[in-house]
């Protein structure tokens, strides 16, 4: 008999069905259920559910919105991957938020001061951001390994410390530049040689014309996703990571150094976190200011949960969340409070989590039955191997 994995752990580690049909069926089922619940909620708030959803879809599919959604999804995706790496071994990196903000600030200050020919400036900036994010996350890892401090607590506190540190550094006397009369404070602008151009040009060359500016660093998110997938599935490190998450005791007995894995995982997670701010910094804002998007680290946690820690799942989740966030404005325009979007996101995550857990249990039962059944009918590898 197999020991049961507690539901919450299964949820965190992204356990789910293994069979292909269920893998695709489960999320579709979950989304349909959550759509249904959302419709009911809209109805309850007095709106017309069909026309509300219609308005969201209409608005969300305009070319401008598509660009915004993709840009937003890029940020969500990187953030969720950073979180998911930790989740894979049951490490809860709540500090992605602080890691990426601090990384973005310092990288922005560096990029603003650099004037290297492309692509060296860009590469240096991105590497610097990853290093800063990784180091900041390493603090939590080292604290856990040497002092047994829960990474949840330390990363939450490190978020606050990062906020304070950023407030201190983002000052005309330090990293920010003086702009008389401005209500904003920002680092010096990244020189044009250090920026990353929009993707629109490249896309129109292949016949896709989009308005606005699609992040030039969007492909980085795709690369991160692919690397994540390859590492988890095809490398020894990925195997160790997976085992550490699923069965820490077995991992230790198998020779995985739990301490080393914790630190390495935290650093990797932090380094990816460092990337979160880069598309915006190098492709849109060119400075770190008070307006720099914050809170992405927390969105990432939800998106990672929704995406089941799977690179492709996270991609869908990121786009879905980006779509919902993007279209929340249009809901206000049809007199639905924008808060309903937050409720919708919550409903989606809850439904997915519950459906996955139910499907997973169903599948375990089915598998055990199948194993017993096949053994009973003589389909047995042991016997087949012996030629009996």
């Amino acid at each position, binding site marked *: 008999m197999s020991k049961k994995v507690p539901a919450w752990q299964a949820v965190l580690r992204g356990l789910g069905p293994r069979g292909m049909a269920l893998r695709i069926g489960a999320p579709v089922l979950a989304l349909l259920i959550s759509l249904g619940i959302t419709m009911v909620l809209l109805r309850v708030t007095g709106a017309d559910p069909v026309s509300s959803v219609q308005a969201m879809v209409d608005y969300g599919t305009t070319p401008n919105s598509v660009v*915004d959604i993709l*840009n937003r999804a890029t940020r969500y995706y990187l953030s969720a991957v950073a979180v998911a790496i930790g989740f894979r071994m049951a490490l809860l990196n709540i500090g992605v938020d602080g890691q990426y903000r601090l990384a973005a600030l310092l990288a922005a200050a560096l990029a603003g001061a650099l004037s290297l020919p492309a692509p060296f400036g860009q590469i240096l900036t991105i590497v610097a951001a990853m290093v800063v994010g990784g180091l900041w996350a390493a603090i939590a890892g080292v604290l856990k390994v040497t002092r047994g401090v829960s990474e949840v607590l330390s990363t939450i506190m490190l978020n606050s410390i990062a906020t304070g540190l950023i407030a201190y550094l983002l000052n005309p006397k330090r990293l920010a530049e003086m702009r008389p009369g401005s209500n904003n404070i920002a680092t010096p602008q990244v020189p044009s040689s250090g920026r990353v151009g929009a993707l629109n040009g490249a896309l129109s060359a292949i016949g896709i014309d989009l308005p606005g500016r699609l992040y030039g660093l969007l492909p980085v998110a795709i690369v991160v996703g692919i690397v994540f997938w390859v590492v988890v599935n095809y490398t020894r490190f990925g195997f160790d990571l997976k085992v550490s998450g699923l069965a820490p005791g077995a991992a230790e007995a198998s020779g995985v150094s739990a301490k080393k894995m914790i630190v390495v995982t935290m650093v990797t997670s932090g380094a990816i976190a460092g990337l979160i701010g880069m598309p915006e910094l190098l492709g849109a804002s060119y400075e770190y200011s*008070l307006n720099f998007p*914050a809170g992405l680290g927390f969105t990432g946690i939800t998106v990672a949960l929704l995406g089941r820690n799977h690179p492709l799942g996270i991609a869908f989740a990121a786009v879905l969340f980006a779509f919902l966030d993007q279209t929340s404005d249009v809901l206000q325009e049809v007199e639905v409070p*924008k808060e309903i979007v937050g409720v919708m996101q919550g409903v989606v995550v809850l439904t997915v989590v519950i459906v996955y857990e139910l499907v997973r249990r169903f599948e375990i039962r089915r598998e055990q039955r199948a194993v017993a059944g096949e053994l009973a009918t003589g389909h047995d590898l042991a016997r087949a191997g012996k030629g009996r």
Partner: protein
Amino acid sequence: MRRGLKVSLVALTGTALTLTAAGCGGKKAATSDQKTVKVGLAFDVGGRGDQSYNDSAARGLERVKKELKVTTEEISAKQDEPDADKESRLRLLAGKGYQMVIGIGFAYTAAVLKVAKDYPNTKFLVVDADQCKVSGANVLGACFSEEQGSYLVGAAAALKSKTGTIGFIGGVNVPLIHKFEAGYDAGAKKVKPGIKVLPGKYLTQPPNFDGFKNPALGSEAAQGQLDQGADVIYHAAGGAGLGVIKTVGAAGKWAIGVDSDQYAQPALAAVKNQILTSMVKRVDLSVYDFVKSVGDGTFKAGTKQYNLANDGVGFAVSGGHMDDIKAQLDDLKAQIVAGKIVVPTE
């Protein structure tokens, strides 16, 4: 104030030439009367009901609605959003045919300038335009001299203080709020050089904008300054300031409100007699002026400074607690208007 305060974005279909068929998802009376002028207003984070900055903008919109017979639309901003969100919000309104679009809060500056280029027939207003700089023939930036109004309430605080110690509580540690503090400090020291102004207390650091929203933070900070002997406390903390005023009022000391005349706010009725005055920032006026100018064809692109000279900022006298020192303050005001006193902003 910063975006934690409010940004309102008013979009108005001035002459409503086009029948905006896109209209709204269902229940808007968009097509009822082609002559109706439509104004949309989108707030920054916090939105309507923050008892302060956003509500001031909302008041301007209400007045526009009543006096100029326009209909309005409001959209609130989300927390922690990047510029792209503000941009798409403006685009959403402009794209629906609103002919006036207003962004409240300096965070909208870049977004307004960008979107305005794509919608030359739409008039845009950005309140608290960053660095008081805008461009484009269809953009107006409203700027406020908060430091001047703060100077006068600072002087009032110093004159009314019995302990010789006064306090300042800012919502979030951003440059805009530093202006309030700088003016307050200078005004107090002008009338009473020996006055002790406690170091300004900022409730939160960006990007945490709770300092403009969470009254509990305000209460706590106010208690701290009361404990240090302050008997007049000025807040520039938006919604969190409600906590400041309630705590100070409950202690029987003087509170000074901000943005609107907080004496008149129902939420503060219980302690209104402890509200000495409020530094009034007429965001409502800037909204009203803008819509009116577009309506009567006198719209002028560029920036407009709201200061003591045109009563864009000032102090409230509700409750009569200022009667004895009003003359003194008016004298200071005259000197500022005349340029004899230059109020620092840092």
